[in-house]
């Protein structure tokens, strides 16, 4: 178990170093950091002095080391555009993105699992066929189109739900702001959460259905039925549990992409999260923000992967090799 975690941690560190290298290259070589910091009128000498003081004339390796050292302390420099520390900027906007991702991820997982199980168990039912056809639409419509359609129906025509922003937010602690505690905050979450989660939901649903149908054909399910176990015990206790390993993998990866793809949804709904921040920093070539965002997304993916691996381990006893070794 310990060895397993250590192995995974080392892999994660390697991934993070690789992403840091890309991030650093972006930071160092895309555009000239000096140009972005000083005005046109600065003299060559001024520039040179600034280069020296920023260490931009040191060997690349030294600079990379410094970059990583700073990153470890959450230090990514000053935003060119907003003249604020990048870390502070991201932290201000992270709660909005994380709350949106959490709500849409949970929504996608629960409805995806429920519909997947239903359509697998009632394979020939009319409703199952309707759901399966509907899910094809969910997979093929682009996210921004879904967002725009939802806004048009529920915000413009019906006027039930707001079409942009987070509504009223409440601060918790020094830097977290939540929309969960106010009615307007909760209402504002609905449309973006659906927009962001719909694709993942249909994906999870189709996966659960396919996996469950596969497991239901297996010998141990036949044997469980032949022992007279109830349909409920067979379907949920034995079959569904065996679909969990692939479902957890995909759901975990999807949660990562939910955060990454929040960019589009945040733009459509004018949601004040890190995705929208990233889009505007790309427009203004605000390189420190871009590279910090890259590192953050990578970190989130790595953490999710670690959690997924640990869940596997909890679900599937066959992975617990250490124990199998000593009891033949």
């Amino acid at each position: 178990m310990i060895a397993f975690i250590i192995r995974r941690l080392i892999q994660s560190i390697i991934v993070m170093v690789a992403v840091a290298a890309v991030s650093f290259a972006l930071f160092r070589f895309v555009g000239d950091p000096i140009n972005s910091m000083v005005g046109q009128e600065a003299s060559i000498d001024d520039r040179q002095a600034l280069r020296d003081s920023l260490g931009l004339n040191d060997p690349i390796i030294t600079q990379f080391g410094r970059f990583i050292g700073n990153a470890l302390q959450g230090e990514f420099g000053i935003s060119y555009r907003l003249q604020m520390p990048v870390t502070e900027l991201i932290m201000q906007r992270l709660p909005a993105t994380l709350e949106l991702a959490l709500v849409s991820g949970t929504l996608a997982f629960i409805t995806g699992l429920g519909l997947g199980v239903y359509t697998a168990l009632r394979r020939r039912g009319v409703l199952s066929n309707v759901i399966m056809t509907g899910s094809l639409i969910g997979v093929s419509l682009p996210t921004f189109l879904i967002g725009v359609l939802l806004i048009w129906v529920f915000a413009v025509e019906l006027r039930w739900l707001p079409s942009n922003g987070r509504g009223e937010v409440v601060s918790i602690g020094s830097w977290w702001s939540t929309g969960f505690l106010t009615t307007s905050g909760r209402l504002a979450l609905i449309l973006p959460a659906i927009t962001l989660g719909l694709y993942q939901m249909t994906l999870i649903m189709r996966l659960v259905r396919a996996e469950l149908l596969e497991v239901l054909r297996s010998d141990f399910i036949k044997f469980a039925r032949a022992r007279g176990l109830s349909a409920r015990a067979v379907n949920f206790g034995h079959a569904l549990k065996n679909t969990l390993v692939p479902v957890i993998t995909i759901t975990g990866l999807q949660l990562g992409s939910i955060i990454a793809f929040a960019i589009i949804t945040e733009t459509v709904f004018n949601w004040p999260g890190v995705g929208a921040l990233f889009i505007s920093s790309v427009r203004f070539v605000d390189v420190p923000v871009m590279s910090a965002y890259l590192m953050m997304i990578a970190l989130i993916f790595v953490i999710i992967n670690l959690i997924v691996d640990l869940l596997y381990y909890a679900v599937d006893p066959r992975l617990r090799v250490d124990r199998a070794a000593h009891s033949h």
Partner: protein
Amino acid sequence: MTDAKTEPLLSVRDLVVEFPTRRGVLRALDRVSFDIMPGEVLGMVGESGAGKSITGASIIGLIEPPGRIASGEIRLKGERIDTLGPEAMRRVRGRRIGMVFQDPLTSLNPLYTVAQQLTETIRTHIDISKGEARKRAIALLDRVGIPAAARRIDDYPHHFSGGMRQRVVIALALCAEPELVIADEPTTALDVSVQSQIIEVLKDICAERGAAVMLITHDMGVIAETADRVAVLYAGRMAEIGPVRDVITEALHPYTAGLMGSIPTLTQETDRLVQIPGAMPRLHAIPQGCAFNPRCERAFAPCRETRPDLISREGGRDVACWLYDPARTGELRDA
């Protein structure tokens, strides 16, 4: 079986099982009839595709749709079970009829310990506490020959070897004390070295509990050593049924005679296997008359026209072959 008045435990009459397919309806079983007496071991043999597994599946009510029992009846202690509703049939499975499948490597749920699977099955059928069920489970594992059962019971299936897993499967099939156990090629997937031990455990434990066994196998050697009677299926039809000794020493049906020629024994060289020329017909191309007639050396006129029904002979033997119908063999003599 000497007591002619004993009621059969299981009685299958004129069972027809059909699979609707795009190319028409396939008859996997065509008017199959046989009995199993209480405590008896009935061997069931036949080539691949003869319908052995389908027979087992129809008895426990687990034919995969769209396959269905089209006609005939199945009685357990005189009571129809082929017409029971799903819930009533579920209570027959495991409790009154146990089932052992071919591959122990895939028969067990990999995510639950042996203890979890055993206690769940016991408590589904018998109203006892978890602790009580666990005690029973350990005793049963011990009985089927799992060493250190009290400790091994909390292991997962992948911690056991193939032979040990099949012992666990047998324990699972027997844990609610069924009156009949259907074992569908229980040793085919196992190492040759453990096959006879597994058969022995199955046979002994069923004998102790007075449970009857329907033993499906390709292996005539196993049938010879284990079964009381043997039933021979051919292309979804019963060819011959009778006491094992008699059928082996003096097969009535020409197909059985061919099969018996293929038993390797200690006195015979194994390369003297007799192969019957030709192959069993596919279900959609069963010949008119006797299904075996294209391969039968002794086929004569009626064989190509009318299907022979089971004819009862002395010594508790049944055979479906025109050679044993005096009215027809008259034709043979005349011809």
